[in-house]
């Protein structure tokens, strides 16, 4: 009867961002009391799908979506997250949306507090009602009991362990009377094992009470453990929608990463390398969202070493930590010499370069010209592009030299711009990325870190960027460590591909290895025995 009622129905959802298709004909249903495990790589479309479901502004601002979202059989058009909340959809985010100075109770009932009207209401409005704290506590306790966790209603959120914050966040969502569907985005990411078990039990309890749950996670064994059905998204399309019974972790992993097209590699032969240039041992990096816990690997001179993995697992923390942008510790050696950590200047002076994944935030001076951007690091670290004036009394920017330098890169990398004097913020994403590359090429590093080199760039520009990296590697012998969430691009130009999960390297594979293997390493299901850095053959 009620048990099988369809609460949420997504029908033929499609979405593109200015021509770039992100979701294509996505349809699935969620029944009352069902737990759906939603699985997919980065860029598969999970986040966009959830944003559509939650009525976020960014969807409307970029052209809306096609298809229908139906709640309990009726089509809905959410104009804002508040509409979604009203319709009964709750979402617990990865970064908690809690007020640190408030207690558990206050957070759970935030902006839905129990109130008693006062005389002032007539004149000054509803907000002059007095809070009924006893009732608030009662409601909060009821919700906590519904979850079945051990939370103290009076503790301040700022003094709670991380796991409890997660529970409070979820409690807030289900405290809303209307909540019928709960979306959880990587809920166990910050939990210890015991806390994760408690959460899974709580979710089962919730589902039993009739709430439908969409559980997004990359921890496949958890998905199999708790979900009734698993839905796999890949490249914006649903590739599998099946009950969990009988499905193995390996199955899901291969659905997640499997592709129809074969990988194009420029050279068939496997290159061999003689010496090690770079050794990393027990590296940890405190980069919020991309924490590195214990990384060990070795890179050979002249190779293109790829580092992949799902978002938030720590791969981006590696170059940021080594180049001194975030606190780090451990042992890093370049050419056998120890690399001092937490020192951006020294890292650069030793001959390493870094193209950051945060193009606009770290990689560019948006309001300055391309000439400034490209010549800057070389000027500051290597004293290039300066000319003496007044008989050597001062050294000022050699604008002519900067112009020549920039024009050179505009030609080599085909940077589309009006001239070197154009402001960086006016270029397209792809061309901005080329400027960032040029900045690093200009210091001629021995070892170049590139993070997410083709993120947000169209196909044509992607090819050019990868070709440029390929060229510098082959012609100048520049060793490249490439960090990317796009497995395909890693497999297309790297000599070896390492996979990172939960702050550690789970394995290193040759680019031609079976896709399922990559998938398993990404989801932490398989930790290769030789994760210390030797290539795995077959």
């Amino acid at each position, binding site marked *: 009867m009620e048990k099988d009622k369809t609460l949420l129905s997504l029908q033929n959802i499609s979405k593109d961002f200015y021509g770039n298709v992100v979701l294509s004909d996505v349809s699935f249903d969620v029944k009352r009391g069902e737990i759906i495990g939603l699985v997919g790589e980065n860029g598969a479309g999970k986040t966009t799908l959830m944003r559509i479901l939650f009525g976020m502004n960014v969807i409307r601002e970029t052209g809306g979506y096609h298809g229908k979202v139906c709640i309990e059989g009726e089509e809905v058009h959410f104009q804002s997250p508040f509409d979604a909340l009203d319709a009964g959809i709750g979402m617990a985010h990865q970064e908690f949306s809690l007020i640190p100075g408030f207690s558990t109770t206050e957070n759970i009932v935030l902006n839905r507090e129990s109130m008693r009207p006062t005389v002032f209401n007539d004149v000054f409005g509803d907000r002059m009602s007095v809070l009924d704290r006893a009732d608030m506590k009662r409601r909060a306790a009821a919700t906590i009991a519904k979850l079945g966790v051990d939370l103290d209603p009076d503790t301040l959120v700022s003094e709670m362990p991380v796991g409890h914050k997660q529970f409070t966040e979820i409690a807030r969502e289900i405290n809303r009377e209307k909540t019928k569907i709960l979306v959880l985005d990587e809920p166990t990411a910050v939990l210890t094992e015991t806390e994760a078990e408690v959460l899974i039990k709580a979710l089962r309890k919730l589902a039993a009470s009739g709430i439908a749950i969409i559980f997004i996670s990359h921890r496949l064994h958890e998905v199999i453990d708790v979900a009734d059905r698993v839905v796999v998204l890949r490249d914006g399309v649903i590739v599998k929608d099946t009950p969990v019974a009988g499905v193995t972790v390996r199955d899901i992993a291969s659905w997640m990463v499997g592709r129809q097209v074969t990988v194009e590699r420029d050279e068939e032969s496997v290159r061999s390398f003689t010496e090690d240039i770079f050794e990393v041992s027990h590296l940890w990096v405190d980069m919020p969202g991309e924490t590195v816990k214990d990384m060990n690997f070795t890179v050979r001179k002249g190779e293109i070493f790829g580092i992949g993995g799902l978002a938030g697992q720590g791969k981006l923390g590696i170059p940021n930590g080594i*180049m001194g*942008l975030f606190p780090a510790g451990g042992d890093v050696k370049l050419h056998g010499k120890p690399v001092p950590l937490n020192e*951006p*200047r*020294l*890292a*650069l*002076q030793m001959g390493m370069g*870094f193209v*950051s994944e*945060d193009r*606009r*935030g*770290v*990689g*560019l*001076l*948006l*309001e*300055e010209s391309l000439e*400034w951007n490209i010549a*800057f*690091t070389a*000027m*500051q*670290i290597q*004293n290039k592009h*300066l000319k003496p*004036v007044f008989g050597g009394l*001062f*050294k*000022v*920017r050699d604008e002519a030299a900067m112009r020549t330098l920039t024009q050179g890169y505009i030609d080599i990398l085909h940077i589309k711009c009006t001239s070197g004097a154009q402001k960086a*913020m006016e270029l397209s994403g792809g061309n901005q990325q080329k400027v960032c590359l040029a900045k690093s090429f200009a210091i001629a590093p021995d070892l170049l870190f590139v993070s997410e080199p083709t993120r947000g760039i169209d196909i044509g520009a992607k090819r050019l960027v990868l070709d440029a990296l390929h060229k510098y590697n082959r012609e100048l012998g520049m060793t490249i460590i490439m960090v990317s969430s796009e497995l395909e691009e890693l497999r297309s130009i790297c000599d070896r591909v390492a996979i990172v999960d939960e702050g550690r390297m789970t394995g290193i594979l040759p680019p031609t290895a079976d896709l399922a293997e990559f998938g398993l390493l990404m989801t932490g299901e398989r930790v290769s025995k030789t994760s210390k850095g030797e290539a795995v053959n077959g």
Partner: protein
Amino acid sequence: MRSLKQFGADFGWPRIIIFFFLVALFFAAPAVGVRVDASLSDVFNRFGQNAFFVLALVPMIQSGCGLNFGLSLGIIAGLLGATLSVQCGLHGAVGFFGALVFAAPFAIIFGWLYGKLLNKVKGEEMTIAMYVGFASVMFMCIMWLLLPYTAPDMIWGYAGKGLRTTISVENYWFHILNKFGAIHFGQFFYFPTGEILFVIFGAFLMWLFLRTKTGTAMTAVGSNPDYARASGISVDKMRIISVIISTMLGAAGIIVYEQSFGFIQLYGAPLAMPFTAIAAILIGGASVKKASMLNVVVGAFLFQGLLTMTPSVINSWLQTDMSEVVRIVVSNGIIIYALTRKTKVSK
């Protein structure tokens, strides 16, 4: 038409209004019996007098420290230099440059300490700068009374110790710069060539500095500190350098001011000076994060123009002194405008 609107939005309608207001005043002047040549002369003189203060704001804006409400510290260093110069009985050019030389070490030390403090409070620099400035001025008030100055021109006659509120430099280095190559046009027009040349020299040095490796790094720090850090630049070090330079220029500024104005003003005088300099540079088109030499020159000129013209024209016209009100509304209004501008988020 759209580009005109864009220009207006970028440049700021308040600035455009102020510009036209000033032009209108110049046109109205003869009609109410105010001599244009005397007014122009006044404007140039006051421009030269105050330009260094406005220039002093540039380094800290460029390095991301915001508007230097604590310019009083530099002014105090300059006052120490000037009083020491008079104490030593130095006259003429020696006196003027002596004041600069004496002020320099104070300016560097104050700037360094002030810079270290600002580094510890990133994000709330402006309010703290204001109050550190005020507290320092008050502290110096106590010092002016206690320090062992002895030159009879400077101390209170009857008490025998403690510096006077205003000290005349008439016998020392009054107009030492202004006189240099001054141009007279008739009875009312006097162009202080030496002073203007000195200002141009200062602006030129600043322009040159901003083009050096360090100056380039400093601009990057203000423009995007993460970018600068990723390129190996020490954000803290650049900020301290900008504060020291700003303080030194403030010190030089008050000495230039004194040689033109004719008096060394101690005690509470430095309290209001940072605000006028800040209003000037903002009127010239600078923002909280970016300032150029053009902003300095245009701003100082417009602001001093307003201060000169408004009292004389409006007073002659309305037979009443509304200059104070206009000054307060204009200078504070432009600062509020700058503070409430959203820093545009680029694509």
